[in-house]
Structures are given as structure tokens and as C-alpha cells.
């Protein structure tokens, strides 16, 4: 859901007031970036200086300054982005053959619109990176059609490609200072002089790199390297971003922040971006994605007829201290079709008609010792079975 600038400002104030300082702060910075105004940037940077120096976790003392900034930002009228929801990347029946046909990706259809986030999941070696690199026009598809509809009227293939950013799992190595590299990226996208400086600093603050801005890239940890990559990407004002495993090697907190940022970037009121990213973090991917593409042996889930097989019945992932026989006994009379044990958790398949709440009641009644339970009827998790 794409939010307007007014809604974002309201949200920022709300988050800050109720103590979600970081989220409020980042949302406010987003609204400031939406204005593209040097005056606003200068005001915000003054606030950022104070905010970043505040060592206490409770930043409620900064509320008045925060509100002032929000008021200033709200004075600037933002024109909503036109062309929202229009298809920007359409892949029709694309395939890619490797090893003389030993591995075949696809055929895959993708219809990606501005503001869309697609998640790409699947076991290792099933074609996620291949699909991303084909979509990124880095490798050529064997068959099918790939159509980009960038808003730019430039015909030059190089310039069109510069509107598309692919971030590989192993990001490029950068030399020199964080700030210099970001400025160098921005200045090539026609933002020069003082505005270059201001915008880069804003982006540095937005992606939590403020304390590290004077460091060299090589001195950053992997989580901050990914933030640096996102900041650099955003400065380029791309229309499509393709990310290969952006969450790999990140701790759980960093993963959540990056995911949140991805969502905020994609759903921006001013510059909504079409995004495809691959990850092994199924639930996190599903939480923020508009659509999840599951790949097995190069084929997407809709071609594997997996959904039809399941007939839309309830599937549950369960971790329990109880023995398998005990669990089977509890559910055997309650429409349990199949029970699988894989990787330390149970997968329970029910017949149509039974709901998660029914299952919870049964568990409670039978006093099963549950450590974890999740409805995976709609999740791609259900495909990851032996």
C-alpha cells in the first residue's frame, strides 16, 4: 500500500511519540527526501546532528525539534507519482539453458509494476540468481521476451540500463571513504555542488550510516555494507532494483531493518520502485512481498501444480516436545491427512474445513507441549519438504 506524503508525516510523528524512535526518524527522513528541497535538507541535517549525538535510548526529549521538522516538511507540496501501478518489467515465458540443457530455468512470466515487491525463494541451485540476472539484463535469456518500460525517454541502451540496479549477493568492493563513493555515485546522476553534499548526508543518515560516514568502506561490517549499498542504490534513483540474497550474513535485527527499508523504498510516494529480491528467510520475505515466486528445478510454483495438489486445505508447521505417535493420536480423529517430520519440525496436512483455531483448541485440550506453531497453508514454506 503506497502512502501519501501527509500519511507518512503523520506516521512519523505517531511512531516517534509512542517511542518507536528509529522508525519515526527514518520515516521522517523519507518524507524529507521526498521534498527534494535543499532548505529542508539543511534543516533536517541540523536535527540529524542532534539526534545522532543523543546517546540515550529514550529520545522523547527531541520531540519538539522532530515536530518542527515535520511541520516544515508538510509545508512543501508533493505531487504524487504518475504512472503508479504501470508495468515496468514484463518477462514473457523466459527460459535460460545451462550446461547444454542440463539445467533449464523457466519458462517464467513476471509482471512487475512500480511499487511492487516480489520475493524469490527456493532451495539452493534452483535458478534464483539466474532469474535475477536475466531480469537485470546481465545474461541473455535463451528464449522468451523481456520488456522494460522505463519512464525515461532515453533510447541509449546504456542509459536505460542505468535505471536498473542489480545488487549481487557478494557486493562489489569499494575503495576509499564511504562518503566519497556515495558522492561519486550521485554526481554522475546529475546532482552537483552543495545539493550533492546535502543529499548524500541525508541518505547516509536515512540508512543508519551517520556514525560511519567518515570511515573507509573496508572498515564497515557486512550489515553496514548492505546499508551502504542501499544508500548508493537510492541515490541513483533507479526504477527497478533486483537484489540477490540481501539478507545473507545479516543478524536478525539487521535483516528486519533492511526489509523494512526495502518496503519503504519500494512504496515511496514520490519515487516508487519495482523490486525483486531473493532470500532464504521465507517468512520475512512473505511478510513484505506482494508476490512470492517459488522456484524448484528452475520452474516457478504455478507450473508445478503444487497448489492444486493441496486443494487449499490447512497445513501447519509445528514444533513440539511430544512424540510423533502422541501427535498422531491427538489429530488422527481430526481430519489429519498426513504428518511429516523434517528438519526437526512437524508438517501437518489437514482435510478441507478445519481451521487454525480448531487446531489450537485441540492442542489446548490435549495439553500438547507446543514451542512453535505456524499456519503455512499460503506460505511457500510448504514447498520446502523432502
Amino acid at each position, binding site marked *: 500500500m503506497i502512502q501519501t506524503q501527509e500519511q507518512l508525516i503523520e506516521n512519523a510523528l505517531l511512531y516517534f511519540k509512542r517511542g518507536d524512535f528509529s522508525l519515526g526518524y527514518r520515516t521522517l527522513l523519507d518524507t524529507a527526501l521526498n521534498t527534494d528541497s535543499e532548505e529542508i535538507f539543511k534543516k533536517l541535517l541540523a536535527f540529524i546532528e542532534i539526534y545522532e549525538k543523543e546517546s540515550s535510548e529514550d529520545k522523547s526529549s527531541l520531540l519538539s525539534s522532530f515536530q518542527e521538522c515535520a511541520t516544515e516538511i508538510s509545508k512543501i507540496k508533493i505531487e504524487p507519482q504518475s504512472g503508479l501501478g504501470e508495468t515496468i518489467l514484463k518477462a514473457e515465458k523466459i527460459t535460460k539453458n545451462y550446461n547444454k540443457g542440463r539445467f533449464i530455468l523457466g519458462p517464467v512470466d513476471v509482471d512487475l509494476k512500480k511499487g511492487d515487491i516480489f520475493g524469490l525463494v527456493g532451495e539452493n541451485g534452483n535458478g534464483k540468481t539466474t532469474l535475477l540476472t*536475466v531480469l537485470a*539484463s*546481465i*545474461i*541473455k*535469456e535463451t528464449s522468451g521476451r523481456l520488456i522494460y518500460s522505463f519512464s525515461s525517454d532515453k533510447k*541509449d*541502451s*546504456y*542509459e*536505460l*540500463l*542505468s535505471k536498473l540496479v542489480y545488487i549481487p549477493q557478494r557486493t*562489489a568492493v569499494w*575503495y*576509499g571513504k564511504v562518503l*566519497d*563513493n556515495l*558522492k*561519486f*555515485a550521485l*554526481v*554522475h*546522476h*546529475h546532482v*552537483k*555542488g*552543495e545539493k*550533492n*553534499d546535502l543529499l548524500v548526508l541525508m541518505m547516509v543518515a536515512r540508512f543508519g550510516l551517520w556514525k560511519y560516514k567518515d570511515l573507509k568502506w573496508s572498515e564497515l561490517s557486512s550489515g553496514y555494507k548492505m546499508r551502504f549499498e542501499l544508500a548508493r542504490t537510492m541515490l*541513483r534513483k533507479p526504477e527497478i532494483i533486483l537484489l540477490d540474497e540481501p539478507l545473507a550474513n545479516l543478524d536478525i535485527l539487521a535483516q528486519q531493518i533492511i526489509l523494512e527499508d526495502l518496503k519503504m523504498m519500494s512504496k515511496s510516494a514520490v519515487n516508487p520502485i519495482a523490486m525483486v529480491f531473493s532470500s532464504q528467510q521465507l517468512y520475512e520475505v512473505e511478510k513484505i512481498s506482494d508476490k512470492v515466486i517459488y522456484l524448484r528445478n528452475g520452474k516457478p510454483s504455478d507450473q508445478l501444480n503444487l497448489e492444486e495438489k493441496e486443494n487449499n486445505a490447512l497445513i501447519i508447521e509445528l514444533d513440539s516436545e511430544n512424540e510423533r505417535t502422541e501427535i498422531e493420536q491427538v489429530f488422527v480423529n481430526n481430519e489429519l491427512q498426513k504428518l511429516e517430520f523434517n528438519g526437526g519440525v512437524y508438517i501437518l496436512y489437514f482435510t478441507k474445513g478445519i481451521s487454525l483455531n480448531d487446531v489450537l483448541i485441540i492442542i489446548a485440550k490435549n495439553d500438547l507441549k507446543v514451542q512453535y506453531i505456524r499456519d503455512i497453508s499460503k506460505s511457500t514454506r510448504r514447498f520446502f519438504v523432502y
Partner: protein
Amino acid sequence: MNFINKINKYLLENYPLIWNTRLVWMLGVTFLVHILFFIIGYSAANELNDLKDHYNLSSFYEDNAVYYNVLISIFILLIWIVFYLRNNAFKNIYQVSKGFLFKQFLLILIIFFLSISQYFSFKQGLVTKIKSDFDWEQIDADIKTFNKSGLFLVQNQADYQITEKKYPEPFPLEVAYADKNNFEDNIDSTRAYIKFEGSYYQFYKINPKFYQDKNEDFYVDERVFLEDVEVDFSIRDVKDVSAFKEFIKPSLFNYSKELFHSGQDSLAYEDQLKNHQKILENKDESEIKIALKNFLELADKYEISHNLDVDRWFELINYQPNYFLKELINTSPPNAYRTSSSTKSRYYDDIPFSETLYVELKNTNYLFSNIHEAYFINSKIEVLFVYLYCAFILALLLFIFKTTNLKNIILAIVASLVLIILIVWLMSATKNLSINSEYRAYILMTFMSFLVLLISFVSYQLYWKKIVISISWSLALFASPIFFLFSCLTIIRYLHQQHLDLYPKEYDYQSDFEIWFSKFGFWAILLISFLTVYLYSVYIRKLKARPA
């Protein structure tokens, strides 16, 4: 540091290409280095002897300056390359304009040229110093004075024999020499000849008309001719010079050399010859003594070591009326070890060297040539060509690396080695073809470079693998000027051959095209090279956007 950071920040935020190439800093550093070399050059001529050590202002290469230059250049360039390669807008697909890459190439070319061309500053320093120390008019007058007295500096017997005589008319003449045994072989007895002290001499000029008819294939030095058994007398335009018969003996009258040439024209030379003739004919002792005195004064001025005084010297040469040589002056102090040598006369016995007297001219001619060069031949265009092309090749290699990758560079080097081996093999394999070797080499090089250009074109059009395309393009950057060069050489050779087929004697014929090429060929090649780099920079951008 703050100042440097401020400038860097400004450049980065406004002129990323200049920031990335570190142009400002490189201009600054190379400027300082050039100043340093100017100072080194300026101080390379502190003493007269410094200018006697090297010819044509070449002390840069003969002293250690060239090593400093190479070391400093490598040091500066290595540091620069490390910084320059840190950022790459093109490889990261930042929005760069179509002309961006070519501009980048021009900037790195400038940086390379400035980093390796300290020679010019060195030379300018040397020239400035020479000009401040010496006034050419004075030097010119001194050279003329030296040359006036030069004939009395009897150091080399060969300079005083009749074959060297250039004045008066009909000299200079060729001489055929014979004794009784080979009289018939070498002397045309039907025409004038001289018998002198038991030997026979015939003086003549070579008749150019007959000469060409007789010697179609190659030029033959007439003196070599003399030693051949079959001498063709028809090419001799014999002169009767029996009036000069006495001068078959080494004499001051025969001396026709210029002691120092620098800056002297043919008029000055004629004056000198007339003057020599006059001074000897007049037999004016005081005039000769003045000439000797002038010489000795200048010798002291130019730090020429000697132990002559006017009287002893006069005594040595004053053998009137024919001024035959009796004794030679040594070219170095004779007491140390006798190194004086004189080119032996073919026609007359050796004349002994003085036991004591010497004049050590050493390389005083270098001194004058250096001063003359400093004033009149300031820089040679060929040197500029060499430096420019070195910078061009270095800049091109770095540019290829900047726009492709290490793998491409390594494979391109391997491919070029394979090409070279192939060319060498083809050269030897086509040996038996009935085309002369030079022509064959030209055609082969033209063909091979054309092949590289063709592959680079076809590979792009037919969507071959990207690595193949970029390797062939890397080679094409070098193949394109080579193709042009060898096409031109082939055409020149062809036109020459065509002309020789019609006019077999005109070996020296130069076609209009050849004249044009020798004048503008370098610039044309350079232009082609730039054009190729421009095309490369446009198309590598397209290639970058193409999926693999």
C-alpha cells in the same frame, strides 16, 4: 590537508571526472617534477667541459638524468594509478554521457605524457643556461676565427693530401694512382696524367652521364673502383693539373677542412678556402703569426689544452714556398703515452709527430654544436613523436583496463602473442613467393591487422561472446593504426615499384603520396589512433549494456 580536502570535495561534487583522474594533483606534481628537471638541465652545463661531453644536447640520455626520470615517472604513475582505479563510474553503470569515456582517455593521455616527458624540461633548462652563458654572434665569430687558423693545426696528415684539395678550380678532383706495375690498369695513358717521384697520377671528375649508364644497379665509390681489375676509363673526365704537381706531397695548400662546422654555411666555407689560399700565397709571416696568435687566445678561452706558442708553432709550419708538412702536432700530450694517430696517406710516406708539441681539441666541436643547437634547433619533432606515442600506448593500456577487466587484458596479451607468432610463421612460410621481402612484410602486416579489425566488427555484429568481442576490440585499438601505417607503406612501395618499372634508374623517386606520408604520416597515424579510441569508447558503452 584541509586545503587539499576542500579542493577534493569541490571537484568530487562538481567535476567527478577531474576528481577521479586526480588531474589537478597530477598537473601540480608533474609541474613540480618538470621544474626540478628544468633545474637539473640548467645545472648540467656549469662548466665548459660539461658541454664538450655530449653531442646535440644529448646529456639527458648519457648522464643519469634519464634514470631519475624513469624512476620518478614510475613512482608517480604507480601511486596515481592506485588512486585512479579506485572509482569507476562506467563499470558501475552510472549515468555517464557518450563522450565521457573519450574525455577520460584524453585526460589520462595528458597525465601520462606529462609524467614521462621531463626530457623537454631538462632540455629547456639546458638551453636556457647555454643561452645565458653564450652569445651566438660571439661564438660564430670565434668559430670563424678558429676555422681561419685551422689549416695550421697540422694534426692529421690525411687532411693535407691532394685528394682533399677543394680550391681553386678545377679542384676537387678524383685521383687514380699507379706505380709501374699497374700503370695500364689504372691510368688512361691516352689522356693527361702526371708522373711524380716514380708514381703515376691521373686527376679527373666523374662524368655523370657515362657514370649512370655504366652503373645501373648500385652506386660505386670511385676509389673502390680503382682496386678493381677492370677500370672503365670512359667515366673519367680527365683534368690536366700539372701546375699543382708539387702538391701531391702533403701541403698546407691542400687543406680544405672546416675545423668547426656548427652554424657555418657554404659562403663562410668559400671565404675560408679563399682566405687560406690568399694567406699562403702572400707568404706574409706576420699575418700567419696573427692567425696563430688568435687561435691560441681562443684555445685558452675555450679551455683547449696545448703547449704551443706562436713562435714554435710558426717554426713548425713555415716551410715556404709550398708549405709542405714536416712534422705533425700531437692531439694529446705526447709524454704521457703516445696516442696521437693520423690517418695514413695512400700516396705519400708518413710524416712524424712532434716530440713535444700538442693541442688537445678533444670534443670542442661538441661544445659549439650544443650552443648552435640551443640557439637554432630547439626541439626535434621526432622526439616529440616518440614521447607522444609512448604516452598514447600507456594511456591506451590503462584505458582498456578501466573499461574492461584484468581477464580481458591478460587474454588480449595472449592473443597478441599468438598473432605475433602467426605473423612470424607466415613471414617465413611465404619466403619462397616471388615478392621482395620488404613488400611481403608490408602486405602481411596490412592483411593481419585488417583481419583483427574484421573480427572485431563481425564479432559485435554477430553477437559473439562478450569476452571475445572485448578482446578483439582491445587488439583492434592497436591494429587500426598498424593497418593504416602498413597500408600506406604498401602503397608507397607499390608506387615506387611502378615508377621503377617505367624509369629503372630513378631509385630516389618519391611519389606525391610518399612525400605526403613522410610529412604528415605521423599525425595521420595519431589521428587514426584517436579516432579508433573514440569509436571504441562509443561502442564499449553499448557492449556494456548488452546481456552476456
